[in-house]
């Protein structure tokens, strides 16, 4: 079991409110990822779930039982720290055994669990070494191993891969996904890295300044971001935003004009827009193509990044920045004029408050 329900969680440090009314239901066996800019409260939220921080308000339930007053040890959760927090003076084996010995578990069972975890993580070869004699990746495995041997109802991981180099991070990411599939326990994972979030998560929780901005599957967040913040945060390079205005409304279509007077047609079936409304139009860089026809957006090219498989074009559209990622290699250089087309691109409309326009 590993169902975790958060209701109106509040946390303040002195006068600073770090978490503001967090509501979240985490299902058993789910892989949940918290993302958000630095300082938004991801770690704090994870630590309140762990029981390392007391909440200021609200309720935490695990499998239907209120655990606000339950100590960290008795919540049945295991945490993997960003720094790994391995005991430097103990061997890997002692590190793995330490937590189990607290509950007076029989020696034979401790040994058995260590052997099993070591085999699963392929750390058998250095059980007798100390953490100081291991590489970063090996240490990271030991940290995960220390969580596994406890057979927790849920794993809490705070940026577990952030101390690894890029290559190792990719392979460990895949192993983590496999581990989750194998163990089937709930995992709550904090990261800065949206690729990690997109690849690992069943559902992503996007946070900003102590609030949840949106919860959804990775593709939900990518395809229908609930607001401008999520739209800008998910996806790399991040979404282009252009100022626009509603020019015409017909059934099924809205015509928008950009600051430069370009007209864009958007499928629209709601009632929340009226002619003259000011909007923000979001376009993903990958959805913009190079074009020749005069009806497209005429831009000035500022910078071209040729990555081989694709070309990133930084352009200027009547004073607004526009980024396009086009496949392949293009003969185009800074200072030139170019035509970019957004025909067929999914356009995201956000109102004055940055919320997604209903029906768009």
């Amino acid at each position, binding site marked *: 079991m590993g169902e975790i329900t958060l209701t109106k969680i509040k946390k303040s440090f002195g006068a600073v409110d770090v978490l503001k009314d967090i509501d979240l239901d985490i299902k058993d066996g789910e892989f949940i990822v918290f993302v958000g800019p630095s300082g938004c409260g991801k770690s704090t939220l994870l630590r309140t779930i762990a029981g390392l921080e007391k909440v200021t308000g609200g309720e935490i339930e695990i499998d239907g039982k209120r655990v606000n007053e339950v*100590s960290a040890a008795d919540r049945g959760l295991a945490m993997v*720290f960003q*720094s*790994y*927090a391995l*005991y430097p003076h103990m061997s890997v084996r002692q590190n793995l055994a*330490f*937590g189990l010995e607290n509950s007076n578990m029989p020696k034979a069972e401790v040994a058995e669990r260590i052997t099993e975890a070591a085999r699963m993580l392929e750390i058998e070869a250095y059980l007798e070494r100390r953490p100081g004699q291991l590489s970063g990746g090996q240490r990271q495995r030991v940290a995960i191993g220390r969580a596994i041997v406890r057979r927790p109802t849920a794993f809490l991981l705070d940026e577990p891969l952030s101390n690894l180099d890029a290559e190792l991070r990719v392979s460990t990411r895949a192993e983590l996904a496999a581990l989750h599939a194998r163990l089937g326990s709930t995992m709550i994972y904090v990261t800065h890295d949206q690729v990690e979030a997109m690849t690992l998560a069943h559902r992503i929780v996007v946070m900003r300044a102590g609030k949840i901005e949106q919860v959804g599957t990775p593709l939900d967040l990518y395809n229908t971001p609930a607001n401008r913040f999520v739209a800008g945060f998910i996806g790399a390079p991040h979404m282009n935003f252009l100022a626009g205005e509603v020019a015409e409304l017909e059934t099924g279509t809205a015509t928008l004009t950009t600051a430069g007077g370009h007209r864009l047609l958007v499928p629209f079936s709601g009632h929340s827009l009226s002619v003259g409304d000011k909007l923000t139009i979001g376009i993903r860089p990958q959805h913009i193509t190079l074009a020749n026809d005069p009806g497209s957006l005429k831009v000035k090219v500022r910078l071209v990044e040729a990555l081989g498989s694709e070309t990133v074009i930084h352009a200027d559209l009547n004073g607004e920045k526009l980024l396009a990622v086009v496949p392949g290699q293009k003969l185009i250089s800074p200072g030139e004029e170019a035509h970019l087309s957004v025909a067929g691109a999914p356009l995201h409309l956000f109102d004055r408050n940055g919320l997604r326009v209903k029906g768009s």
Partner: protein
Amino acid sequence: MSTTSLTDRLGSLLMAPVHLLMRIIDIPLRAVQKAAGIGGMAAVFLAPNMLIFGIFVLLPLVINFVYSMTGGTAFFISERNFVGAEQYQRLFTCTNYLDPMSCQEDAFWTAVGNTFWFVVLQVTLMIGVSLITALILNRDLAARSFWRAVFFFPVLLSPVVVGLIWKWILQRQGLLNFGLYQFGIEPYTWLTDRNWTFIATIGVSIWAHMGLYTLILLAGLQAIPKDLYEAAEMDGTKPERVFRRITLPLLAPNLLVVVVLALIKAVQIFDEVYVLTGGGPGTSTLYLTQYIYETGFASTLRNPGLAAAASILMGLVLVVLTLIQLGVGQRSEKKGKR
């Protein structure tokens, strides 16, 4: 802009004499370098320091050794006669080696015995007290820096001041008796009771020096990552086990340094005790350094040779302790590198 140029100008004004001095020094140094070569310059730069070390440490050491081989009451070495190992022999002449009173220099052996018990008790208590204080100060305690300062303050006092303060507290008409009197307890002559003075010298020296050791231990405690404690908390580790299995082993290098420093300092105990008790009552708080001082300078029948011999013996003990400290330091350094 104008402020930076002003500070710049002020800076160059202040630096002008330095630059001038450097240019003047440059001339002879160039000449020296031409003579000594680049490699020889290291020796040239070390020379002043080594000279001071030689004059104030090495030379006295050698002279002290020479004194320990001479006899008589005269101070100047030219007026003293060579006696070989006689002074050492005198220190070790006993009829019964198990009874200090049977020795020719019974005061020396009394001082050795007193110092031994003082060192054992004082260092043990010192470690305990400063460890507990450091553990308390390491908590999230209100006005933590204030308390830290309170415990460190006595370290800054001159030992004579420490002695005087406690004399003022412990003497017959002192603060302690005054306080007890308020509660209807009869005043007591603390400083004339053999047991109490011994305890007082231990207590006072702990009070005077614990701040330094507390600080060293506190630094060690703060260097232990908080994460380790949180990991232990997640595992439901009992506080006693956390202390024994995490705090103590990770504090071990600092603890060893503190033990050795405290040992060396305790063996050398003198000034505050001399001011507080003068070694009394009787010889109950006569420690080794005071014996040496009195034998060599203060007593009417002064014997500088005997004092020199005793201090050579004490020096040997300190050398052993220092070597242990160096060994410990190197070991913990190696550990830190891993």
